[in-house]
């Protein structure tokens, strides 16, 4: 604060501005420089373990499924899983931690950044990471005998779109749950999306009501349409192996208290019956895998 003239502010300010978007991405990149190694490590090691376990174990018993070799089958599955982990978890946990514990979003929103810009920048950042880290298992699978084809070049883009949907799904959930522990309902019973209950109750100082209200609206719309797209694109290829994973999901269910499990199931069945949760239902087939593991993404 010397006696030089103050910085001249631009006269017109638009609704969406590149500069706000860019600044949030720069912030994310700066943070990313601290955790890229661990993310890369898990993106390589996780599919390797899956391919070794299933390929050398179960794979010796099965030669092909639906005309695909077992390596092709499991390898592509790990891509879907990596995309899911790289997007839904940061969407849920990082967003929640930053909004409620670190209050980083409070700081950003006190600066000339609007909620729409923040949601757009955070969502696309997570999706970009999902696009890259979701494709690494594909490269790993090459070493297990998958033949590269030109069509595979589309995988990062499809992974980006799927990641965008899952990121917004996670961000939406992070505004719905009351406590971070409530995410357990989602991570162990995906498909039952209203896990944490509503946060609309009266609180003297909610962290940011704009995230609660406006964002919930926009995120919800984005999440549902992107999730639908994602469900169609990825599930179609991968969902054939839904049955073994549905078992996983049911085991996850069994860990919940019986009453909760029953009511959740009844509710889900009811929703499906009423045809309201077509999206949830479709998403269920591979989202069930969430319950199988935990993210390696550092929170924050």
């Amino acid at each position, binding site marked *: *604060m*010397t*006696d*030089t*003239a*103050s*910085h001249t*502010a*631009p006269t017109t*300010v638009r609704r969406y501005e590149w*500069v*706000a978007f*860019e*600044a949030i991405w*720069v*912030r994310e990149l*700066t*943070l990313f420089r*601290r955790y890229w190694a661990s993310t890369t490590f898990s993106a390589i090691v996780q599919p390797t373990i899956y391919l070794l376990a299933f390929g050398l174990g179960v794979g010796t018993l099965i030669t092909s499924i639906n005309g695909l070799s077992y390596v092709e089958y499991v390898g592509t599955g790990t891509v879907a899983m990596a995309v899911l982990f790289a997007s839904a978890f940061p969407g849920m946990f990082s967003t929640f931690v930053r909004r409620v514990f*670190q*209050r*980083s979003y*409070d*700081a*950003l*929103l*006190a*600066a*000339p*950044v*609007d909620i729409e810009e923040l949601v757009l920048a955070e969502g696309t950042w997570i999706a970009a990471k999902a696009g890259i880290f979701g494709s690494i298992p594909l490269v790993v699978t090459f070493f297990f005998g998958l033949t590269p084809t030109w069509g595979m070049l589309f995988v990062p883009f499809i992974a980006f779109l799927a990641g965008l949907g899952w990121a917004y799904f996670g961000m939406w959930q992070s505004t719905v749950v009351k406590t971070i522990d409530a995410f357990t309902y989602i991570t162990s019973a995906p498909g039952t999306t209203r896990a944490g209950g509503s946060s609309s*109750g*009266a*609180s*003297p*100082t*909610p962290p*940011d*009501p*704009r995230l609660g209200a406006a964002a919930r609206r926009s995120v919800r719309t984005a999440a549902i349409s992107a999730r639908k797209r994602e469900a169609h694109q990825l599930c179609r290829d991968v969902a054939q192996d839904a049955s073994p994973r549905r078992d996983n999901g049911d085991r996850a269910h069994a860990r919940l208290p019986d009453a909760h499990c029953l009511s959740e199931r009844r509710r889900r069945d009811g929703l499906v019956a009423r045809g309201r949760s077509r999206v949830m239902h479709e998403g269920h087939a591979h989202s069930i895998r969430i319950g199988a593991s935990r993210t390696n993404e550092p929170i*924050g």
Partner: protein
Amino acid sequence: MATPPVETGPAIALTGVVKRFGRITAVNELDLDVSYGTVLGLLGPNGAGKSTTMRLLTGQTEPDEGTISVLGQPVPERSKQARLRMGVVPQQDNLDTELTTRQNLDVFASLYRIPRGERRKAVDEALALAMLTDRADAKVTELSGGMRRRLLIARGLVHRPDLVLLDEPTVGLDPQVRQELWSLIDRLRTEGVTILMSTHYIEEAERLADDVAVMSHGRVVARGAPLTLLSEHAGTEALEFFGTPDKLGRIEALSRAAGLPTRRTGPSVSVLRAESAPAALVESLGSGSRRAATLEDVFVLLTGERLE
């Protein structure tokens, strides 16, 4: 900052603002305006609505009723334009703890649209202002509490705002750090920056504020220069008595009968406007110690003695 704002009208104007959270009314028919280039101290007990008022000014909370204008812009409609020229120092530390001091400032330098070529200089100046130049490359987790608070303030000043909102800037800091921050705020004032500072440290408001607004239950119950408020509500002198609850009760009754306000201060009772007390009354009250009236007396008189 060096170029005085040419705007007419107040820098901040709230009219009939109401904000409810469920059944709690945090801000109740609030009217408040702050002129350009002045420092307004917003005084009030916890829960009086100070922080909600701050968040209404940044558009982070939307009012249920009333109108708000900040730097000539209607809020929340054109809040983003107002935020461009506004610096916000929150009560709660929300620095990026994984980043360094400089990186924290870099992010906000770009968020505040400082042109790329000028960012480095702006960040260096903010570091110097907060006396953190030699800790520029330290991670936030390595900084002391006082340094973190200084960084938080520097972050709100990196773009040389015309208006600064300080929410409890010195809460929880040791006396030395508080002095440092006070001189920093004083420096901003001499540069013509408009400051709205919420605090419940009376001394802070007395020293720094041109004008004080006392808030209670979501509205302003008194407004004026610290000295004016003093003479209006507490006079110039107070008599303070210690003793048993019975004795204190008797003193209170006698004083009130004579039309003098009193307030409890823990184990003692203070009779205000003591300078205007009749000699006979002073005689009957017994031996007390005479002291100057303080803004704290005004504060307690106006906002009530009991916690709610």
